[in-house]
């Protein structure tokens, strides 16, 4: 359970922001919020810790500046909601809920304080860098979009959950995983996959039972809750983590986010990144080895643009193995989905591909 002093600390931090602004106003100054910039220009790849971090560049948001005023108001409004509606009462609210509480029309205008959820979401991320509090510490949760199965028993809000006895769906991972505690873990490794469909395939094949593994998925980009869960399992239970994604630049980036952190959440890297994570597949070599070339999908305009971006990220640019993968993808002129393995037989992935790769330690770092 969250400790009481953490809640008080959160309250203090968020109130401090308000106090500073009120002080400025009392002194007749243009109210200003200063915070680290969160765009690519201020993202630093720390080679020592192998994580993405925020640099030293600071941005300034002024209330009396037409270009900033609305964002300024959004930041303060969302802060007041977190303080008054969540922290004061000890309740949690979803990102969507915060959006609805802050969404209202300013009297005498046709202007809404926030027009869509991306604006309130952004305000919360801004508050993270401004106050140093994580979203979770501010009692704001996100969509839970992830599942876990395997030989692991954990405790969630007083309930004990055995993840080996949860049928085809598995354990639905909550958006805030800081408060989970691991009771009993009996597995050799964690397999994290981009595709929920593969998760279902492997679960049906009882892959985790046969190979003594924990399976985790979160459809598409990995949520913060899952990333924090994986990090804790890696740190606290010393489990190796292998990542299985499509053979495309979006898949590669999913892997790199788990390993090094993301541009959008660089300020939270410390609590989310897992430098030890390994990429299992699908690789260009798998395509050659398992003769999957017939099942490739031609790269489109977006793929090529993304490829160009990804190959310029420092953490890819300085890694020969990844440059080789990207080059081979470019030479193929094509990408592949994990499901392409099914052309070798529905259970080819669980019976041959995965066991072989893991046994031979065919990983990319």
């Amino acid at each position, binding site marked *: 359970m969250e400790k009481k002093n953490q809640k008080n600390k959160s309250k203090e931090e*968020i*109130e401090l*922001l*308000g*106090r500073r*602004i*009120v002080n400025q*106003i*009392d002194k*007749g*100054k*243009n*109210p200003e919020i*200063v915070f680290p*910039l969160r765009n690519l*220009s*201020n993202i630093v790849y720390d080679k020592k810790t192998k994580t993405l971090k925020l640099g*030293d*560049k*600071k*941005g*300034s*948001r002024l*209330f*009396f*500046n*037409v*270009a*900033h*005023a*609305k*964002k*300024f*108001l959004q930041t*303060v*409004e969302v*802060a*007041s*909601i977190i*303080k*008054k509606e969540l922290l004061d009462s000890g309740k949690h609210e979803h990102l969507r809920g915060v959006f609805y509480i802050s969404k209202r029309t*300013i*009297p*005498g*205008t046709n*202007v809404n*304080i926030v027009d869509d959820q991306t604006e309130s979401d952004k305000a919360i991320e801004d508050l993270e860098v401004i106050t140093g509090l994580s979203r979770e510490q501010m009692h704001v949760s996100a969509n839970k979009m992830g599942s876990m199965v395997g030989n692991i028993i954990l405790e969630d809000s007083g309930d004990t959950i055995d993840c080996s006895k949860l049928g085809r769906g598995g354990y639905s991972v909550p958006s805030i995983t800081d408060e989970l505690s691991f009771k009993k873990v009996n597995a050799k490794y964690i397999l994290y996959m981009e595709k929920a469909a593969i998760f279902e395939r492997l679960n049906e094949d009882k892959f985790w039972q046969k190979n003594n593994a924990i399976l985790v998925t979160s459809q598409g980009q990995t949520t913060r809750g899952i990333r924090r869960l994986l990090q804790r399992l890696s740190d606290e239970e010393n489990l190796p983590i292998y990542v299985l994604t499509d053979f495309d630049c979006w898949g590669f980036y999913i892997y790199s986010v788990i390993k090094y952190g993301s541009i959008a959440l660089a300020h939270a890297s410390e609590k989310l990144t897992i430098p030890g994570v390994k990429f299992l597949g699908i690789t260009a070599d798998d395509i050659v080895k398992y003769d999957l070339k017939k099942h490739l999908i031609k790269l489109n305009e977006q793929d090529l643009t993304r490829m160009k971006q990804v190959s310029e990220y420092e953490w890819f640019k300085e890694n020969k193995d990844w440059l080789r993968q990207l080059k081979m993808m470019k030479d193929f002129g094509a990408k592949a989905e994990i499901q392409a393995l099914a052309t070798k037989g529905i259970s080819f992935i669980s019976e041959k591909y995965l066991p072989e790769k893991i046994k031979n330690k065919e990983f990319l770092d």
Partner: protein
Amino acid sequence: MTENIKAVELSKKQREISISEFFTRNRHLLGFDNPTRALMMVVKEAVDNALDATMEMKVLPEIYVELKQLNEDRFIVIVEDNGPGIIKQQIPNIFAKLLYGSKFHTLKQNRGQQGIGISAAVLYSQLTTGKFTKIISKIHPKKPAHYFELHIDTKRNEPIIERDHEVDWNKDHGTRIELELEARYQKGRQSVDEYIKQTAIVNPHAKIIYITPEKERIEFPRVTNDLPKEPKEIKPHPHGIEIGTLIRMLKDTTSTTLSSFLQNDFSRIGPTVSSNICDEAKLSTRAKPSSLENSQIEILFKVIQNTKIIAPPTDCLSPIGSELLEKGLKKEIQADFFTTTTRPPSVYRGMPFLIEAAIAYGGDLDKESTIRLMRFANRVPLLYQQGACGITEGASDITWRPYGLGQSSGNLPTGPAIIVVHIASVWVPFTSEAKEAIAHYDEILKEIKLALQDCGRKLAAYIRKNVKAKEQKERISLFEKYIPELAFSLSNLTGEKSAIIEENLKKILNKNMSKLIESVQEDGKEESKE
């Protein structure tokens, strides 16, 4: 015997057709195609004459125009000026003989060019009503005024004087013409009203009083006491003539040698060029101009066209001037913004010309429709044949969007604007004798575009600035709306009183208002701080 020969038989029917007869049958060529247009043409010819007459005398024009409606399709047109008047003997010729006048043989920036104008109006009056045209003219305060009633003998192109006597006329000098004609009166873009209004715009030195058929008196005031610079007469430039003109000039010249003819009757030919031309054409410099044979003239013409000769002088032109054009527009057009441009003179086919342009924008002008194009040639409004006019082509060729007007490609732009183009030239190239559309010479189109683009740039700057200013105002008022919201949020966050925070924020806003307006112009990005 002869009775059986066809040619002899035919010859009985063949005879000279006088210009008057020709006009009778082809009145559309001169712009008298329908009763509405005829009314405009008659007023136009009379007003043009009035303005030119006062110009020659160097007096500030005071022109009186009156339309009297007799019945639905019959009108009396009266135009009176304070010009120099016309001596008694010349009155019949000027008003009742076609192609008679002082302008036809000269190259000078004049309103009329062919001398066909006013007598055509007299003829039209005669043809449609059979009435006499009444003229009063006075040349000096101490001399009597003369009154004439005139017709034209259409077969011989000679005046018929019905009455001729002295009258009392309460005026120092000037001319008054009164014609009765079949016509129709209408309002709108091609009306007499519009013609007079546009005339007032490009003649800001003139005072015009206009009595409409509804007996409404409209006064167009004078906004400057400066007379326009009088255009100078120039001799033709050798590259601007046709072979027929050369033949006529050789016949008419008073010069006795070819060399002196070339030097005296043309501009820009000196002794060297003259003797070069003669050598090249294998003609003696002392040849008698009138004795040249046609084959020799043909060679001479070709040689002249192929000889390099400097461009004609351009100081013969008299632009309205940017400042006066703007004044003229401002007094007649309700708009927020005016810009004008006068281009330096240029040359087409040996003829000097000059383009002026203006744009009026905003105000009462219609935002949705096509702009209004006002075309002028030597200070005369052109109301007809807009589609056939080179000015229209020039204005449509420009890409107007960057200048802040709408446009579907190749068309005139849309927006709350009036676009004005004036061409001044010693010889305006009209597409027909109706003198309503400018011919499409490349040199002229180019100048039109340059002039309009210059106006366009100034218009764009104005629009940018003003649209911005409007946005700034709106944004400042947005701060006022944001303040209570911010105060409310901060109060929730800190527990401080909302009203006090709001008061303090208002103080900051009021104190920094001017600074805030300036800062709006900066890029909206959140500045980075190292």
